């Protein structure tokens, strides 16, 4: 029999971005809370300190901050006709592990989606009619609007300490900001960071073509800053060891730098590491959860943690896996369209152009994870889907973010991969190239979904989750459109050489190269229990005392990095718990 711990008011599963938000906001209510984290504890000092953290091999290549696939992984196939095979070594996406989660080693690009993206189905139907929606695409509206979420975007940005320049301040469009963004009730908490050479070249070229460049919104401190929890940040020094690394200063926005030290001061909050939650336990009637069962790695035994409320904040992939294993919804069947759990898994469609300028110096090692100038002129709200033949959009960005040579060595196409030619090319080209990236939307499709694998199991004997995912024509067409628009811009900068990398129509998903850790959907939000897994407050339709945080809530993915929306939804959820649920626990919709 499992050991049993003392009952708590709240158990939090996973102590990354959303778990930390839930922890501190609910701790303010005086609730007894325990957070269970499967990984290790880690903090700025001593874990991220200089110079040990400045190690490309350990963190950038061997990925020592990431989920250990020997502990937990999933299988992948591209369609129902293939046999899914395990994701054995990290490649395409890099889920986090340990206190802080992926929030520790993210890039810090912090976006709000456009208002149209949250009501995308309506936006499409109103402007072009239902007829343009391709067969097999599950296009939906979020059950929350931009206006509903605006206060919570602002709240997350204040906590996370975001640097930027508002382009739409209460409806007033401001020169130098993003004219296509949704309205902001306040400007960013910190001004934008300085602009590196590549960004300024891109900015000038974009302006000359009539586009609207603006500084990328960055979870990277540009000045000294104190957030609403009293946490202090100091300005970034462009160390260039940002994405995949913990910040050795207190400059990158993370659970460690913005929440956790304040949270740990609450006597009613505690957390246990090396504690991997195995399933959520449901009451006999299946209508509420009684707590969670976890694996205590130190004691090597299963433990039952009873609680009145369960917050799932273990990252999108882990949340969906736990929900499938716990019966927190009916698994989606793409053939019949029945069931909702695992439905609408989506990702991100990216491309880019690299340009070589032999005589110019870019110092690529000077940068941070969210560096750069951006344009949103080809974003979702700006594209004529009817005329272009796709639904979607992207933002373009240029800015150095790491010059670490094992992974960041752009060379002219045709350069040999080894030998004398390679060695000569690295000497000639390092530091003389810049790039522009297109970061694009990804829609939801019947084909792309998550369920349990029939063959492979984890160390606890549980079935692995199975991902069925492939690129679809709609998003590939969007990508090709971006290529056709980006090439003239890049050419206008007169590089000595330029080369484009955009997936072609027919491209098949390849799990090996890193793409993004923006896995979305699977426990999507919906207006009613027939269409999704959670309601507008991220409360599961199945059990009213289980709330599921994170990008699993996304109806389809947006064109942006997910965490701005993830953070806002987390604040929206805890606000509903505080103001509506605690006084009267029940389904809120």
């Amino acid at each position, binding site marked *: 029999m499992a050991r049993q711990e003392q009952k708590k008011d709240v158990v939090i599963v996973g102590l990354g971005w959303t778990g930390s938000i839930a922890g501190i906001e609910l701790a303010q209510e005086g609730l007894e809370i325990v957070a269970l984290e499967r990984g290790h504890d880690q903090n700025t000092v001593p874990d991220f300190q200089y110079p040990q953290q400045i190690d*490309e091999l350990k963190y950038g290549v061997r990925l020592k901050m990431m989920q250990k696939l020997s502990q937990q992984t999933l299988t992948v196939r591209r369609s129902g006709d293939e*046999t899914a095979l395990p994701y054995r070594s990290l490649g395409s996406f890099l889920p986090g592990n340990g206190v802080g989660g992926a929030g520790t080693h993210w890039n810090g690009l912090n976006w709000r989606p456009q208002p149209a993206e949250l009501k995308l189905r309506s936006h499409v139907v109103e402007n072009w009619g239902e007829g343009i929606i391709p067969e097999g695409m599950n296009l939906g509206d979020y059950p929350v609007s931009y206006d509903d979420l605006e206060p919570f975007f602002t709240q997350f940005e204040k906590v996370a300490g975001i640097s930027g320049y508002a382009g739409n301040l209460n409806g007033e469009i401001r020169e130098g900001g993003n004219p296509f963004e949704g309205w902001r009730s306040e400007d960013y908490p910190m001004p934008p960071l300085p602009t590196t050479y590549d960004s300024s070249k891109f900015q000038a070229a974009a302006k000359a073509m009539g586009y609207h460049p603006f500084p990328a919104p960055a979870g990277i401190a540009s000045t000294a800053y104190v957030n609403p929890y009293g946490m202090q940040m100091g300005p970034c020094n*462009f160390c260039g060891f940002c994405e995949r690394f913990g910040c050795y200063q207190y400059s990158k926005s993370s659970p460690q730098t913005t929440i956790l030290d304040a949270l740990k001061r609450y006597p009613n909050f505690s957390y246990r590491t090396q504690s991997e939650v195995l399933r959520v336990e449901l009451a006999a009637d299946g209508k509420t959860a009684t707590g969670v069962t976890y694996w205590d790695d130190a004691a090597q035994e299963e433990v039952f943690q009873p609680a009145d409320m369960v917050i799932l904040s273990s990252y999108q992939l882990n949340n969906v896996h736990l929900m499938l294993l716990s019966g927190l919804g009916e698994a989606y069947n793409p053939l019949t369209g029945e069931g909702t759990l695992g439905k609408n898994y989506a990702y991100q469609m990216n491309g880019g152009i690299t340009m070589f300028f032999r005589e110019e110096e870019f110092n690529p090692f000077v940068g941070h994870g969210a560096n750069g100038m951006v344009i949103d002129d080809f974003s979702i709200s700006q594209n004529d889907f009817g005329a272009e033949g796709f639904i979607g959009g992207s933002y373009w960005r240029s800015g150095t973010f790491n010059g670490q040579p094992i992974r960041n060595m752009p060379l002219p196409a045709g350069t040999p991969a080894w030998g004398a030619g390679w060695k000569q090319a*690295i000497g000639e080209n390092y530091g003389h190239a810049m790039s522009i990236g297109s970061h694009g939307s990804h829609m939801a499709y019947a084909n792309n979904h998550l369920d349990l694998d029939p063959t492979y199991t984890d160390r606890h004997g549980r079935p692995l989750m199975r991902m069925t995912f492939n690129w679809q024509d709609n998003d590939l067409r969007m990508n090709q459109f971006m290529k056709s628009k980006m090439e003239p811009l890049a050419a206008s900068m007169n590089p000595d050489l330029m080369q484009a990398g955009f997936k072609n129509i027919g491209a098949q998903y390849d799990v090996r190269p890193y793409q993004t850790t923006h896995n979305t959907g699977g426990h999507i939000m919906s207006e009613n229990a027939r269409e999704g897994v959670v309601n507008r407050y991220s409360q599961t339709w199945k059990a009213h005392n289980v709330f599921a945080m994170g990008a699993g809530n996304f109806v389809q993915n947006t064109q942006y990095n997910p965490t701005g929306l993830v953070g806002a939804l987390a604040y929206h959820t805890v606000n509903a718990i505080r103001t509506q649920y605690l006084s009267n626990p029940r389904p809120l919709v």
Partner: protein
Amino acid sequence: MSHSRGWPLPRKRRKAPPPVPLEDYDRAYLNADEWAFVMAATARLIPSDGDGPGAIETRVPVFIDLQLAGDYGAAGDWYMEGPHDPSAEPARGWQSPLNPAEVYRQAIPAFDAWCEETHGEIFAKLSPEQQDASLTSLQKGDVGLPSELRDFFTILLANTKEGYFADPIYGGNHGMQSWVYIGFPGARAAYRAWPERHNVKYPLGPVSISGERA
């Protein structure tokens, strides 16, 4: 702008003590034949002639030996449970039942046998031109390795470049020579004044995690 003044060079350059010659190096994982192969192969993947250091001066073979002896070689972080389908399409990722250390162990004799059959000698004894031709065949998948060894060339090349560019604490990139060659400042990681210095070459040489300077 001029950089002859303003960024003083460190008064005392800290140099690592001279390392054990590669011939006397006490191997952690590779056996003598494997060592001979790795020495010969990395010397062609990143040759010593021309501008910039080669794999041998930067002690890439030491790096590879240590990596294979450790967690990477053992695929300690990877999911290695069966069933395995090593002949699956490459886009499906690593599907070999073998870990990287085992792949080296089995692939080196298999490739050496192919070299002997094709060129009359094992790889280490071939001429540089024959070695390059053999590596090209290996790269193209023309050597007929069984599918569980298919990724051998990919990891050999990746590990060689890792050893060339990684911090010297891992045994390669001796003297930070590769960083000096390309102009990467290593573990300096502090550039507060630099984002606005547009199109100006950063003037300082690298430092390493253990405090070497070059």
